[in-house]
């Protein structure tokens, strides 16, 4: 076993660190070292996007990075979407209101991709939304209601959204 290295990241606004093997994937670091199991694993070829998180303002498939590469980064996972006061993010609300999920397995990744999509383009067209979430596979919904969920959130930005969006901008 290779010598462990200390990885320190800011996750959902909180500084976290753990000593890990250099080969540990970021997704395993998030799920197992940090116990944030909302980020899922759906494939082994980086196609499905279930492991998508926001890293320094950009979406990454956390199965394509080593944890050590994320050292010093700022990460947002699905667990960090809700406001400190317990208010759902507009996207979370949109997924529920528009029936944008069924089994829920792709949902965290979808939320994170949609989150960055809306940050970069607050008023996307349907086609732009479809392109924006095309790195995330969903097996249940046929995407139509996910598109509706993103449109719902675009039409209804919340205060919480603006605050976290600032975080992304940094």
């Amino acid at each position: 076993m290779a010598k462990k290295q200390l990885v320190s990241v800011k996750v959902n606004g909180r500084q976290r660190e753990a000593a890990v093997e250099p080969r540990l994937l970021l997704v395993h670091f998030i799920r197992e070292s940090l116990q944030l199991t909302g980020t899922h694993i759906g494939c082994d070829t980086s196609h499905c996007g279930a492991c998508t998180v926001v890293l320094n303002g950009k979406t990454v498939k956390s199965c394509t990075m080593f944890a050590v590469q994320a050292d010093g980064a700022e990460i947002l996972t699905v667990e960090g979407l809700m406001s400190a006061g317990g208010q759902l993010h507009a996207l979370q609300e949109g997924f529920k209101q528009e029936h944008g999920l069924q089994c829920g397995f792709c949902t965290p990744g979808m939320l994170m991709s949609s989150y960055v999509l809306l940050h970069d383009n607050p008023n996307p067209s349907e086609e732009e939304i479809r392109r924006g979430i095309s790195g995330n596979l969903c097996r249940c919904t046929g995407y139509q209601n996910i598109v509706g969920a993103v449109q719902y959130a675009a039409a209804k930005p919340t205060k919480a959204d603006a605050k976290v969006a600032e975080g992304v901008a940094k």
Partner: protein
Amino acid sequence: MIHKTSPEIGGMGHSIKRKEDLRFIQGKGNYVDDVNLPGMVYGHLVRSPYAHARLKSINTEKAKALPGVLAVITGEDLAKANLAWMPTLSYDKQMVLATGKVLFQSQEVAFVVAEDRYTAADAAELVEVEYEELPVLVDPHKAMDADAPLLREDREQKNNHIFHWEVGDRQATEEVFQKAAVKASVHAFFPRCHPAPLETCGCVADFSRATGRLTVYLTSQAPHAHRTVFALVGGIPENNIRVISPDIGGGFGNKVPVYPGYVCAIVASLTLGVPVKWIETRSENLQSTGFARDYHMTAEIAADRDGKMKALRVKTLADHGAFNAAAQPTKFPAGLFSICTGSYEYPQAFCEVDGVYTNKAPGGIAYRCSFRVTEAAYLIERAVDVLALDLKMDPAELRRKNFIPAEKFPYKSSLGWTYDSGNYEAAMDLALDKIGYKELRKEQAEKRKKGELMGIGISSFTEIVGAGPAHTFDILGIKMFDSCEIRIHPTGKAMARMGTKSQGQGHETTYAQIVAQELGIPAADVTIEEGDTDTAPYGLGTYASRSTPTSGAATAIAARKIRDKAKKIAAYLLECNENDLEWEPGKFFVKGAPSKSKTIQEIAFAAYTNIPPGLEAGLEAVDYYDPPNLTFPFGTYVCVVDIDQGTGEVKVRRFMAVDDCGNIINPMIVEGQIHGGLTEGLAIAFMQQIDYDESGNIQGGSFQDYLLPTAVETPHWETDKTCTPSPHHPFGAKGVGESPNVGSPAAFVNAVVDALSHLGVKHIDMPITPWKVWKVLQEKGVAA
């Protein structure tokens, strides 16, 4: 008609938002890989690189020597406990870990257990297996050849034939064909595909030496049935097994069978006394767990010159891979494939299926489908279009001419099913009207003059779901009833548990709506729990669109039992005779004096605090529902495609889905099911196939090659409905989750063939890739 409750109660017909969503949108679902127990260790399977090979030796020394490795289990180890083989759900058996030889690529050969998942994977690489390659059988058509290699040496029968199954009158059908004016035929291959739920299969097996109990967290669509299988196969007393099926990330039939990885994890936990987690990778999921379809089918229709159908004849070769691990009712080796007469009146029909072994992964599972109904619906809807072409008739008019008329239901088909209800013409007319069929045909004619390729495809499918009546349906002897238990708490809130298990269908919401409908307790006040065999009543699980027809029915009946008791309590509280009471959702009132009433909440409180003399305390009921018949959902789908003559790409311009699933519990959820099923149908029609090369190497064994549509390839779906309630279901529902996956492949393929039919094209096998279409365009001289 179903009485519509207020939105506050949220009974049937309300599109209430899903209760389960709140945890999923916060990342707080609890899927199997999220289960993390103290002292838990990890398993990893060693798999065969060969499709057919003798096992010469397995050396586990290096693997065992790696620090962190706790055990390496081989087939020989399992054989000592009589566990090297396990029964399948089709009265065949399957190797858990290979002994003697391997029969498909990626077959399970050894199981490594280590302290963490990376070490387990490292150690698996260190297991040294020596193989001697054997001749490989890939083509099922060659399985019965005299020189075909014998795959299953363990069987008494020394050939590769599994079963012959036939239904209908062969002789009478033949006579009709001999006299028929018109005979149309189609050879259609429904390719091997895979359900590929986004969450793969896995488990955490936790045997406690302190209590002697085994708890298995399992990706299971049928937790109770799996508990019984573990008890029978493993010899563990069933009261000492608890199967917990936590949140399931999609199933689609993939999570019905018992897989070798589960058994290995259980054996490892029993041996080591610690929890053992095994989660397969996506590639392992595609390469080794239950595939679907792989039916080589021929359909012939005998008809009059005016298009009246007289007889149907179907012959099918079923490729089952190395073990017959089809998950289906015992008496039906080809599932419910004999629904292949579809929506049409056939005075005579005959259907035969032969199953064979090949060196491919085992399966034959019911992928979003009620046991081979998808294959049947695809075949008949393709064959009808070929007949329309032969007769130069409009495919919609040919269907109309042959539909089972609405007034003939219940209708007994020539292959023996009694269709409960239907109105096929109404559904087709609505679909044609909504999509503007006549205008589309005009547009098509104009485009053809200009040399452009546009097609319109129709599929008027009929399903057979909700297995099923105990007199006919069982799995491994267990009758296919299902169950519900409801408890009303003193404060009028409720808890209900079922023998089924949601994998995304929204049971926590829809079952609550059934209780709300029947008892008037708001759906928001009803908690639904499934998947824990320690607490839920026994049932056969969720697949084959059976949850609403079976457990949904049980829920209504259990609620009605509670209402009966509630009435006695109300009469006591109101000091009147039971017969003087009337019910409206949520309360009993005295006939003619509506102000004298007791709400269900007041009655519930009295059931624990002011119990009528002679009555038991409490307000609970359980029901095990044995459906009197299956249900027969139906619909018409119309698809419009444009073909790019430069690239061969097919663009789905529009897709109109009209479904009839009887009375609807939650329209929002039904529509969501339709969207999802259509998208899976799109993938099957245009993108996906699990194929094998001549050496038995799997093609399509990862998401690199097995394509799932993204939001970009997926069109905007249009949906509508007609409503023909099931006459025998307690609230007239039929089940819907699978209809779009069953009905849509034919609509897609019919549309593509329709675009090319004037060039002499009668059939193209799925998946209809741009390459396949481009080759046709080249051949026909119409490529741009």
